[in-house]
């Protein structure tokens, strides 16, 4: 506790010292950038030691969410302090309060972008891509020749810069949401294929022999043993795919889009120097991405409650 409190006080003092040393000129000098770097380090240590003190003060049941929450609030407070202390121009870095007010003021635009990107491109593309990957994995499981041919290819394609096919897909499917959904399908297909195939092999030999002893068909073994055993791998792929889906849809919008959509809004607002709007869109993307991931984690917990990683 002593060490935590001392670290907190020292880093707080250092942060304040750095904050009052900014020259507050526009544009910032090289000296200012060095001070900014020092401020980032000091304020990060400050936020971390605050959460460290909280970790030692509060009971275990609360620290699980309290410690990261305090760390997050500390970082946002440090961000706000930095913008005010260094007088950095808003075209480089807006403060959290400016972003919040822009967010509150542009809800219709943000909602329209959300519908275009998330509801029309990400979700359908994620469902189709993951579904296709799953079905192909079942096909490969049935036919060993296909598996041995397709799996190395799948591993290769998963390592390639898939974002490069975005301009080709825009050319094939047009400017609107179908090309973005197609991009998401391409990005989510291979991780799902690889992970499902790994999962289908995850059931133990003893259990598979037992099913054979019962005279179970391939389909019965699949439904009663191998698919439930594969669920941790499948959910792993679904969670990876949720991130890839968002990236795919937004990057595909850089290559051509009607005048609505999150990627479109981000790139045009950068051009118009409205960085607070860009950050508001980033906030929407972060919240939707986290919500999507959280829903998948909840579903995973319900389905794979038996997995050792859930033991306390």
């Amino acid at each position: 506790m002593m060490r935590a409190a001392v670290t907190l006080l020292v880093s707080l003092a250092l942060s304040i010292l750095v904050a009052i040393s900014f020259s507050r000129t526009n544009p910032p000098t090289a000296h200012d950038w060095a001070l900014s770097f020092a401020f980032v380090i000091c304020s990060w240590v400050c936020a971390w030691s605050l959460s460290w003190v909280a970790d030692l003060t509060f009971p275990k049941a609360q620290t699980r969410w309290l410690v990261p929450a305090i760390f997050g609030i500390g970082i946002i407070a440090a961000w706000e302090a930095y913008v005010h202390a260094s007088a950095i121009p808003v075209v480089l870095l807006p403060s959290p309060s400016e972003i919040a007010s822009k967010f509150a003021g542009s809800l219709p635009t943000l909602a329209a972008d959300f519908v275009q990107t998330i509801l029309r491109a990400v979700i359908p593309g994620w469902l189709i891509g993951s579904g296709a990957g799953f079905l192909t994995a079942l096909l490969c499981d049935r036919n060993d020749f296909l598996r041995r041919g397709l799996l190395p290819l799948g591993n290769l394609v998963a390592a390639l810069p898939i974002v490069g096919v975005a301009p080709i897909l825009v050319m094939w499917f047009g400017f609107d949401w179908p090309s973005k959904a197609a991009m998401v399908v391409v990005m989510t297909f291979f991780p799902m294929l690889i992970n499902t195939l790994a999962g289908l092999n995850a059931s133990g030999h003893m259990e598979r022999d037992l099913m054979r002893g019962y005279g179970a068909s391939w389909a019965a073994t699949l439904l009663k043993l191998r698919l439930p055993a594969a669920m941790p791998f499948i959910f792993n792929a679904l969670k990876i795919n949720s991130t890839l889906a968002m990236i795919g849809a937004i990057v595909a919008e850089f290559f051509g889009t009607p005048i609505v959509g999150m990627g479109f809004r981000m790139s045009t607002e950068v051009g118009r120097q409205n960085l607070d709007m860009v950050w508001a869109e980033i906030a929407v993307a972060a919240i939707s991405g986290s919500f999507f991931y959280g829903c998948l984690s909840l579903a995973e917990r319900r389905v794979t409650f038996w997995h050792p990683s859930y033991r306390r």
Partner: protein
Amino acid sequence: MKTEAKGNFLPLATVTLAIIVLWYLACIPMNAVLTTPKIASAGGGFANTLAFSWNEVRPVLPSPHQVAREIWNTVFAVEPWTIKSLVYHLWITLSSTLVGFIMGGLLGILLAISIVHVASLEKSLMPWVIASQTIPILAIAPMLIVVLGKTGLPDIFTKASISTYLCFFPVTIGMVKGLRSPDVMQQDLMRTYNASASQTLWKLRLPASLPFLFASLKVSVAIALTGAIVAELPTGAVAGIGARLLNGSYYGNTLQIWAALFVAAFAAAMLVWLLGEMEKQSLKRTGGKA
């Protein structure tokens, strides 16, 4: 698990051949919108259909031999230091990839070592590290590039920062797992030798974490290449694989896009293979399973 007594060559070759055949067949309907008038004016017929579908100048779907010819023309038929050469563009992209990859790898390793040794760091930082990956960084790449460009750093570092951000997460997660992977028995042994935390780190944890490190590095290098390509998009860059993709997309030069894509894919495969070789060498020297 079935032991792979038979090799993978025949199935792989069959699937690849099937893909190439399907590709040639798909060219016919995909290019139809461009080729139908030309076929009609040439008098129709199967031979004409094939000839026009497979040799269109600005095709919707280029045929494999067109892509191969374009790659030959821009890689082997020009001097590698001219702006016409894909090798030049690949080098620009690869340099920022490698800088970002090294910075991201080092950051990830440092972060992992700190997380393993300081308990409160894990509780406060890990949820945010994981949450940071839900923000599609590739989507905010434009803004980051523009902002970092104004700080006066050389271009290569602004592009490398995107790669660093993408790289550090798999390396952190993998290394944390790896640094924690030694048996309880082995950790107890170090304790009986009165080993300090630093000695345990260097003599036990780091060697044990090498397999995890290399698995993460292979994922990271591919992601770093993607990050470097996307980082070139916003600034209207004139050099680099991303710039070639954007350029081809704007001017409708399909063959340029496909050639750049294949060269980037080849580079990614080479990088992953190189890391695989390094992994084999280091595992041999540290007594791990090859």
